[in-house]
């Protein structure tokens, strides 16, 4: 099981701040593709990915129990 977090514009597009995906041992890229079948995820490729609060890349492997966050371009400060 993977926990997936959305923020800002992505959160509004998905309509949820958090969903769970019944999957494991897939890459970030595979997760994205899977989500795009269900959700409209505008500008998803501009988003950075964090796994367990650390930035990751498209080919990082996601393990069971991981928390994956889609981080749209930040605008704090």
């Amino acid at each position, binding site marked *: 099981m993977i926990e997936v*977090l959305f*923020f*800002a*514009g992505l*959160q*509004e597009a998905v309509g949820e701040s958090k969903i769970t995906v019944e999957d494991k041992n897939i890459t970030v890229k595979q997760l994205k593709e899977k989500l795009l079948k269900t959700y409209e995820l*505008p*500008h998803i490729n*501009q988003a950075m990915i*964090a796994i367990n*609060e650390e*930035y990751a890349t498209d080919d990082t492997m996601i393990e069971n129990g991981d928390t994956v*966050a889609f*981080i*749209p*371009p*930040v*605008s*704090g*400060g």
Partner: protein
Amino acid sequence: MNKYFWITEDPIDLNDVYEKVVRSQAGAVSTFTGIVREFTHGKRTLFLEYQAYRSMAEKQLAKIGEEIDERWKDTQVAIVHRIGRLEISEIAVAIAVSTPHREDSFAACRYAIERIKEMVPIWKKEHWEDGSVWIGDQQEKISYKDKVPPLEEMNDD
């Protein structure tokens, strides 16, 4: 409150960060505060809304503190960012850096705000009279909708 890097829903007082960095080895303290500006290119902001990936944002702020520690000698850094609804002139972010001498406090404080805008998972939603939008992509100058003002202005708070 023993944290030096934190996210809060409450109004920020500049002394919240200032007092954390004052110490007898320091001769200089630089602070930076980003506050809510009312007009950008003549367009009136009613209020702002900030959202954070809170636990990760606090870690990333602490990481900026570590980066500063590596780059400058004998620094003490504190950073707080507010989330939720912010009115005009309220503080969104406050940074304080103390160092023995002033050159470093300026440089490290400037570094901190630039890094916040690059790597800390916090987002701002502008609320105008005719709508609202999440602001994004400060590096690439792209936003999620078309009706926002030029981003080089919006991002440079």
